[in-house]
């Protein structure tokens, strides 16, 4: 089994699905890169190269650039999905949701319900999220809590290359609209990823580590930090369960509740802003459903209620990291 990057894993998943199903099309700003120009076509393959190579293989009918008009081309993906295609559309940065959110949350998400079950809208919206790139307030947000709030959407937050491939294939085969969150800092992360296609089901959390004392629930890039923190804590004799829910919607409440029943302590690590977030969502779940098992207050590790700052010193202070998780676990144990 070869090592592949998060970028490669996603690219491979899309390519394999495109080979399998001719109804899978890909579009977004510069997803080819160079359309209609005098230079190289496929010059970019997406701003960070995730779709590179799809155009040469699948051609201009299936891999398309778009003008800058997110409402129109994300909406077009929704309309195409409702009429028989399975588009994988790219919202370059999730921060740009503000110019096209309607097509996602009022159209794609609600068709099936509003139309009484008579619509199927199998769109995947790929989007970059997260901090650490020094990309400042409008290119570093997480925002998946907003999408998780919306009934009708599925929300995927893969934490590693292996996860990304399996979840992307599932996303493309899934019949509901899926928001697929790719952490921009993880594109070069590598791990072993099978060459053959495989799916990872939605709504099944991944136990990346089992322990007795504390359950850590972490999302996306935070899963890696949680595991690092668990290593450190292990040396202090604190044994952690680390849970990667993989998808925030659907959400594997069962596994979380089971783990909390066992450990009695909970730390949640969410890179999104703290208010009405997954950190609070998980807290609410546990405070309602596993209250009696709790031995200590729930701890949340999140950024503060501020936009994402530019300066590296500030952004580092802003983001959760392994040290902050370690500190939170110690508090939970105290």
């Amino acid at each position, binding site marked *: 089994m070869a090592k592949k990057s998060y970028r490669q894993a996603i690219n491979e998943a899309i390519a394999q699905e495109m080979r399998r199903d001719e109804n899978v099309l890909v579009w977004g700003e510069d997803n080819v890169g160079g359309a209609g120009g005098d230079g190289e076509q496929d010059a970019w393959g997406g701003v960070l190269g995730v779709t590179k190579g799809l155009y040469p293989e699948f051609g201009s009918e299936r891999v398309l650039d778009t003008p800058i008009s997110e*409402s129109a081309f994300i*909406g077009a993906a*929704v309309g195409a999905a409702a*009429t028989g*295609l399975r588009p994988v559309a790219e919202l370059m940065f999730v921060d740009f949701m503000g110019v096209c959110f309607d097509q996602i949350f*009022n*159209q794609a998400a609600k068709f099936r319900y509003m139309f*009484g079950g008579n619509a199927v809208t199998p769109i995947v919206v790929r989007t970059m999220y997260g901090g650490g790139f020094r990309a400042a307030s409008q290119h570093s947000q997480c925002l998946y809590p907003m999408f998780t709030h919306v009934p009708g959407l599925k929300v995927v937050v893969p934490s590693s290359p292996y996860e990304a491939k399996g979840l992307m294939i599932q996303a493309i085969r899934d019949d*509901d609209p899926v928001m697929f969150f790719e952490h921009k800092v993880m594109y070069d992360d590598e791990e072993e990823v099978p060459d053959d296609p495989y799916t990872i089901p939605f709504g099944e959390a991944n136990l990346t580590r089992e322990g007795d004392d504390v359950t850590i629930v972490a999302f996306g890039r935070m899963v890696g930090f949680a595991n690092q923190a668990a290593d450190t804590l292990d040396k202090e004799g604190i044994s952690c369960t680390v849970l990667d829910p993989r998808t925030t919607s659907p959400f594997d409440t069962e596994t979380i509740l089971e783990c909390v029943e066992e450990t009695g302590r909970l730390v949640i690590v969410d890179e999104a802003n703290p208010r009405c977030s997954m950190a609070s969502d998980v807290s609410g779940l546990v405070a309602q459903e596993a209250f009696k098992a709790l031995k200590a207050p729930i701890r949340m590790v999140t950024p503060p209620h501020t936009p994402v700052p530019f300066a590296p010193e500030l952004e580092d202070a802003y983001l959760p990291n392994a040290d902050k998780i370690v500190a939170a676990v110690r508090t939970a144990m105290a």
Partner: protein
Amino acid sequence: MQFNRDDLIKAYRGMRTIRDFEERVHEEFSAGKIPGFVHLYAGEEASAVGICWHLDNRDKIASTHRGHGHCIAKGVDVKGMMKEIYGRRDGLCGGKGGSMHIADLSKGMMGANGIVGGGPPLICGAAMTAKYKKTGGVAVAFVGDGGSNQGTTLESYNLANVWKLPVIFVVEDNGYAEATSAKWSVAGSQLDRAKGFGMPGVEVDGHDFFAVHDAAQEAIDRARNGDGPSLMHVRLNRFFGHFEGDAMTYRGEGEIQRVRDEQDSLKIFRTRVTEMALLDHEQLDAVDTEVAHLIDEAVSESESAPPPTEADLQTDVYVAY
């Protein structure tokens, strides 16, 4: 083109069905029998019928909040619509959508839309499906004069042209967006905008079925032939308020009466075909009777149809979750 007698009857029946449907919904709403926000299409019938005349199930339309006419013209079941507007369990959408969300994808009707400008992006996607799958289908986005100012609509003009999609953008300009006059809210002109985005545009009298029909033919043929999108600016009037309950004081003195007298697409059609001796009044009256009966049935069936139950509340959110 020259219509045969059956065609003429069919066109009239389409417009009459819409008119009667809307007049009746107006009555029932006033009587407190229909809940929610309801926007009536009465007065605009020739547009929906003249355009959808050329469409079949391969072809898709995206509608607006004022969607009943488009649905009927696209062949959506009238009783299923009425039941939906009443919020009944066997309404087209199981009572979950209501007037603003009637859809029938099997008929190529992609939904009324509660969001002004919601349809044009969707229709670009439907057109992409048709183009990619080479179905020969076209896609029609209806927007109002108000919706023609929404960014989503304008972006779609560009995307449809850049991607050379088989789209027809139909701006149904009834002169108002809610209470706001189109003369005031639309800077420039619809046809100049079409040109601005590199597509042909045509203005047409939306009270004249034949004019709409012919203009639509050209636009739709162009799209079907792979020559890309175009725009129709259809001028027409609505007979009722923006939504049910609107007193329409923003309209000029006597405006409604003038419109009803002089720009009633059904009257105009009737006069035309009878003067040309293509149909006689009795034939048209027979259609009126037939349609009146259908609408009566639709209403009485809707009144007695059972509502959804609490068990329906959480179904249809996802295909699988």
